[in-house]
């Protein structure tokens, strides 16, 4: 298994290099530093100002190959910065991106961890519930509700939730942030509810399919034959056996705990990494955007390897060769 994990890590590293190469192509070759400068300071900026901007942001080097010093080119610099987690400075306001990441990770985790746990609890429970009553009216109604919920855009949940809670009911503030944990809880309640509402349709439907497939197996019939009730069959027999697809869904969602939810954060004024991404879009801050994509894919690759290892824990039959 160690050999397998090592091999996966090597392949994962190669994928990371691939991502970096892709980002270089996109943000240095396709959109050249000159384009980026124009976007930042305006289409009609004088050439001198553009050159000044390029020099100030350290883009005034050869793109790929520097004949005088092969280590001094944008390509080398791009890889070096990302792989040493240095990241450089923001294109918009010159703040070190690392500092931004450190500041934003906390609020993002504070939103995403409760959201993730609630979502998992709600969708697995509802999925089990609907699967218990498969092929009945409860099941059909459940699936219909799921499709209905899936068809509503997340924006509508956000706008609707804010309007209802903040303007009509006046329960708690619709957006904002504070340093003290007791206040944060009030600010987080609505985004968490909205997040669960926006995603439960798809999730419940997925888990239902998984559980219904499991209930057709022989061990379920055996469990019933020895006198297990519905609840016991579903929770003690079906749920552990359905662990593999559940794990796949869960672990792959972990990167987003850090990168945060772009929509929820910026809409509810949570100063996390999602808001940072939105600021980067609006401020044409390509440096920050590159870092966000890089971190997202790095975490995703690590999560995938972790999924494979967890498979062996969830199902002893799985052997990693």
């Amino acid at each position, binding site marked *: 298994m160690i050999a397998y994990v090592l091999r996966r890590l090597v392949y994962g590293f190669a994928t990371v290099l691939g991502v970096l190469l892709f980002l270089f192509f996109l943000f240095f070759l396709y959109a050249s530093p000159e384009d980026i400068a124009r976007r930042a300071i305006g289409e009609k900026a004088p050439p001198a100002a553009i050159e000044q901007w390029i020099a100030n942001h350290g883009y005034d080097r050869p793109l790929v190959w520097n004949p005088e010093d092969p280590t001094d080119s944008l390509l080398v610099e791009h890889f070096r910065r990302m792989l040493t987690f240095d990241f450089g400075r923001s294109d918009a306001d010159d703040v070190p991106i690392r500092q931004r990441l450190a500041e934003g990770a906390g609020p993002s985790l504070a939103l995403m961890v409760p959201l993730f746990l609630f979502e998992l609890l709600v969708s697995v429970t509802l999925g089990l519930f609907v699967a218990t009553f498969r092929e009945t009216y409860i099941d059909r109604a459940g699936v219909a509700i799921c*499709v209905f919920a899936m068809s509503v855009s997340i*924006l509508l949940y956000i706008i609707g939730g804010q309007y209802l809670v903040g*303007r009509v009911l006046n329960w708690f503030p619709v957006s904002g942030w504070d340093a003290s944990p007791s206040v944060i809880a009030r600010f987080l309640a609505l985004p968490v509810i909205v997040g669960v509402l926006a995603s439960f349709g798809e999730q419940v439907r997925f888990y239902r399919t998984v559980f219904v497939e499991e209930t057709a197996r022989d061990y379920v019939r055996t469990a019933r034959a020895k006198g297990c009730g519905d609840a016991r069959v579903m929770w003690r027999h079906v749920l552990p056996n359905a662990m593999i697809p559940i794990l796949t869904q869960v672990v792959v969602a972990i990167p987003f705990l850090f990168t945060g939810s*772009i929509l929820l954060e910026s809409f509810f004024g949570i100063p996390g990494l999602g808001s940072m991404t939105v600021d980067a879009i609006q401020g044409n801050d390509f440096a920050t955007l590159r870092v*966000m994509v890089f971190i997202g894919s790095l975490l*995703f690759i690590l999560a995938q390897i972790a999924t494979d290892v967890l498979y062996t824990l969830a199902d002893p039959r799985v052997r990693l060769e």
Partner: protein
Amino acid sequence: MEPHVLSNLITAALAILLAAALLRARRDPLWRGAGRELARRRPIAVSVVALYVLIAGLDSIAWVDGHAPGAKAESGTLQGQARSVIDRLFPADFQERSYSAPLATHELYGEEPLLHPGKHLLGTNMIGQDVLHLTLKGARVALVIGGLTSAIVIPLALLVGVSAGWVGGRLDDAVFFVMSTLASMPTLLLLIALIMALGTGTTQVCLALGITGWVGLARLVRAETFKIRELDYVQAARVLGTSELRIVWRHVVPNLMHLVLITFALLFSGLVLSEVMLSWLGIGIDGSWGRMIDQARSELSREPVIWWNLLASSTALFILILAVNQVADAVRDVLDPRTALEAL
């Protein structure tokens, strides 16, 4: 060529293609059975989707009024502008100066009388455009997003997936690496990065959606091609001396079409919803429902509340997505060999 002429030509070409595909499907008993089953299972959803397609099609056919230049000088800005069939359902100068409520006779702020009192069924927006008109026009934008992106995704995924699965070896390794690299980047972030680099605009947004969207289908196609490659009928064709290209074209690709159709149906609603999110981030497509919803954000905090803009655009969006989701589920049930067997 003028944009409306190009749009007319494309619409005509698509209409002919659609008719040809339907005619051909009617002759094939398998496809005919599937189509009949689809219409039997989801009659309402199928007709709703057809209605949206019709509206979008009518909105794509446009022409310019008046042959003599300067003949209608009084219509000012509208002179020489192409208007589609949908535009022609409304008067040419169907615009007010500012917000007005549905069926109102006066402006919302300022109590100025409207130019067309009581005629705006769903009110008007900030610059006085008729909301019903804009909502109908949004159908075309939504279908263009889904259609154009699919036109990028499906050929690309088929080409890459089939060649990787058929040739195998080094090519397959390379393709697999590219796919896992693209798939490792979080979708929304990748989408944003692509649009930031490519720039905004319909083509760019669809291209970005295509680049993020093709990997899933290519994976399915690759795996299925692996399976088909070993099947008896392919071996038989090979023994008969059929050329590789002909085997792929006649025996492999047709057996992948159900995957393509299922993925297309499932992909479509995701694409339209993605554009709504992009609009909200300020990098969407002009005239889309996403833009209207985005605008409505600030309107809800006004006094009195402006709800018609949000209601119209989000209802139109919701009905389309719901219908497409239902059709997609039915398409999968009918065409997927696994679920189709269960249904028997």
